[in-house]
């Protein structure tokens, strides 16, 4: 492995043009991740046609690097403005933004930089060591029933975060699941709930909904505070987390690496569920659960470690099995195909050089997050000094473009502002925005895998429990729900 890695490193840094592409990917991924309204996917989509002129290794490497640094870039706006750059950065905003409100933005961004780098590097190392065996294990043990069970467990955990009562947590998740049923059903392609709008046949897109629930609703909350004279400008904090603070969270980092890596291997799940699960597990294991959501460093550390830990893992099904885990890895399949290559087991034998250049590039891209991230952080923090009345229209306009640009539908802009108003009202009445968003994101994945799983086991639910991973996840989700039901009816949990 070491020889291959060194060979990949020398191929990467031995050619000035390849180095230039690497640097472009690192900086571009961070920038596009950090600009509200656009994302690493926007950059990848723009660059896709140009990769035809590159060497296959350069093209695939560029996308892999953008994936690593773009996943980190979205954390910056999540922390500073409550605008997650991508769905996988949404949990980072839960505690990152309250930290900014408390004047601890430097600490939050510093932790995001460091933990993204740690999660990404750890993931890259495991990817290098174990892509082939892990892929073989995954193909034998992970199928639709396991993915459905993981979604069930993820939703059960999500309902315990954010709502004023467990009932409101559940209602939030169910609302998200209900919104996710809008559009074609994943099995028969039958239109559901399009209310006469043909554009709704494609469903509610995640990006407008997330921008609405987080960014637009936040603008409305701040506008309300301005109008009622309660506005308190966020304080700029330049102090970074100390080594001791980070060392105190070593178990959270380790746990999030494991959670992130496991989620990353699963096709279609990837970094988003990884971040939510990383956050959820941090809450579950914490002794001071009530501090989450109010600016707890561990919240930022857990979600940012987990989402970057998923990046290396997401390459495993892609490279070893030819299965893309998400939108960006699907674009990487297109890059392979442009060069008459097919990702899959044969790529390890036919193009080992390409594989090791990509592995080395991902390793160094994650290290770059640490150095470039720390250098740029202080500059970015000065954005907070811009008066909010000037920042708000810029954020709203960028969010509008971000919502419109992916599908070219004005309806998506309407959906975003509708989600903004809904988010504003639901936040005021104690519902959970993270719960709604996770329900929305996982709803379709859950339904699709449930349907496939049921067909697979001939509608015998008992077969689910004969699959070890599936039964563990279902039992864990059921226990989480049972604990919630107990608390819902227990006088001790409800006394003032």
């Amino acid at each position, binding site marked *: 492995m070491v020889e291959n890695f060194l060979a990949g490193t020398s191929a990467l840094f031995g050619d000035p043009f390849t180095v230039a592409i690497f640097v472009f990917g690192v900086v571009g991924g961070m920038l596009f991740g950090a600009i509200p309204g656009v994302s690493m996917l926007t950059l990848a989509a723009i660059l896709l046609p140009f990769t035809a002129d590159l060497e296959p290794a350069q093209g695939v490497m560029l996308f892999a690097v953008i994936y690593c640094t773009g996943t980190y870039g979205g954390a910056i706006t999540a922390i500073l403005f409550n605008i997650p750059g991508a769905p996988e950065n949404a949990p980072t905003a839960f505690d990152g933004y309250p930290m900014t409100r408390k004047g601890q933005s430097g600490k939050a961004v510093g932790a995001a930089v460091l933990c993204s780098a740690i999660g990404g590097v750890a993931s890259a190392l495991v990817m290098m060591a174990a892509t082939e065996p892990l892929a073989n294990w995954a193909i034998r043990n992970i199928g639709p029933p396991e993915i459905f069970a993981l979604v069930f467990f993820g939703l059960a955990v999500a309902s315990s975060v954010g709502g004023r009562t467990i009932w409101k947590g559940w*209602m939030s998740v*169910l609302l998200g699941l209900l919104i996710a*049923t809008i559009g074609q059903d994943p099995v*028969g392609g039958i239109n559901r709930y399009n209310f006469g709008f043909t554009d709704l046949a494609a469903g509610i897109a995640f990006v407008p909904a997330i921008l609405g629930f987080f960014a637009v609703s936040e603008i409305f909350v701040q506008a309300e505070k301005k109008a009622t004279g309660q506005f308190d400008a966020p304080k700029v904090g330049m102090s970074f987390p100390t080594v001791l603070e980070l060392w105190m969270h070593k178990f959270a980092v380790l746990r999030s690496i494991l959670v992130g890596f496991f989620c990353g291997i699963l096709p279609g799940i990837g970094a988003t569920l990884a971040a939510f699960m990383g956050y959820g597990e941090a809450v579950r294991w914490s002794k001071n659960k009530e501090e989450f959501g109010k600016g707890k460093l561990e919240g930022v550390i857990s979600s940012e470690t987990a989402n970057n830990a998923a990046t290396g893992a997401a390459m495993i099904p892609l490279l070893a099995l030819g299965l893309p885990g998400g939108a960006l890895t699907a674009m990487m399949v297109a890059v392979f195909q442009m060069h008459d290559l097919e990702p899959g087991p044969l790529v390890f034998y036919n193009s080992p050089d390409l594989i090791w250049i990509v592995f080395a590039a991902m390793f160094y891209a994650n290290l770059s997050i640490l150095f470039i991230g720390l250098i740029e952080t202080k500059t970015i923090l000065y954005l907070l000094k811009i008066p909010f009345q000037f920042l708000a*229209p*810029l954020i709203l306009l960028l969010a509008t473009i971000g919502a*419109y*640009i992916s599908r070219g539908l004005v309806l998506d802009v309407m959906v975003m502002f509708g989600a903004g108003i809904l988010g504003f009202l639901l936040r005021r*009445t104690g519902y959970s925005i993270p719960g709604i968003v996770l329900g929305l994101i996982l709803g379709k994945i859950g339904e699709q895998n449930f349907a496939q799983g049921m067909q697979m086991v001939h509608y015998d639910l008992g077969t689910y429990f004969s699959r070890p991973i599936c039964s563990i996840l279902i039992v864990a989700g059921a226990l989480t729900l049972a604990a919630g039901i107990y608390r819902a009816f227990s006088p001790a949990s*409800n006394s003032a």
Partner: protein
Amino acid sequence: MIETVVWSLIAIIFFGYTFEFNQPIEIYKFGATGWPRVIILLLLLVTAGNLYHHFKYGSAIQKGRVGIAETDESPTDYSNPATLAKIIAILFTPFLFAYLLKPVGMYSAAPFFIAAVIWLFGERRWKWIISITILIYAILLGLFVVTLNAPLPQGNVSPFYDFSGFILKMNTLLQQLW
């Protein structure tokens, strides 16, 4: 009580609509309605639970709940009608902007939207409103039109459509210079 009525109405409306797509799927026993109907049933159950909780324990935060931001819970004084009017204006200005995107287009509507938001957020110095509007508009054009060539809504009503055409023509000329 209002909450319960709203949630029940959502559940009833969504359940009613399931009959519009209640078609069998040959390869899948539960059809297109199975999944949404289970969600609706669960939503009704949880809504009833929420009502029970409200009557028994009130609307206080349950012990052990996590992730509730303090800013979401702060009480707000709406006794002044001007404050309420301002909030309503802030909530609906973006909708008006979104509605105008199709006929007017992004290039013509954006400057007015930017200026309106700055004004609604309390800025009253006209020099600042105009200069910040120009700056944000320049960022919009520089980043999304010149650099990314992003296809933004152009409008379909004259003279707004013509103005969008003019901006795009200028962009093409600029690109040719490179």
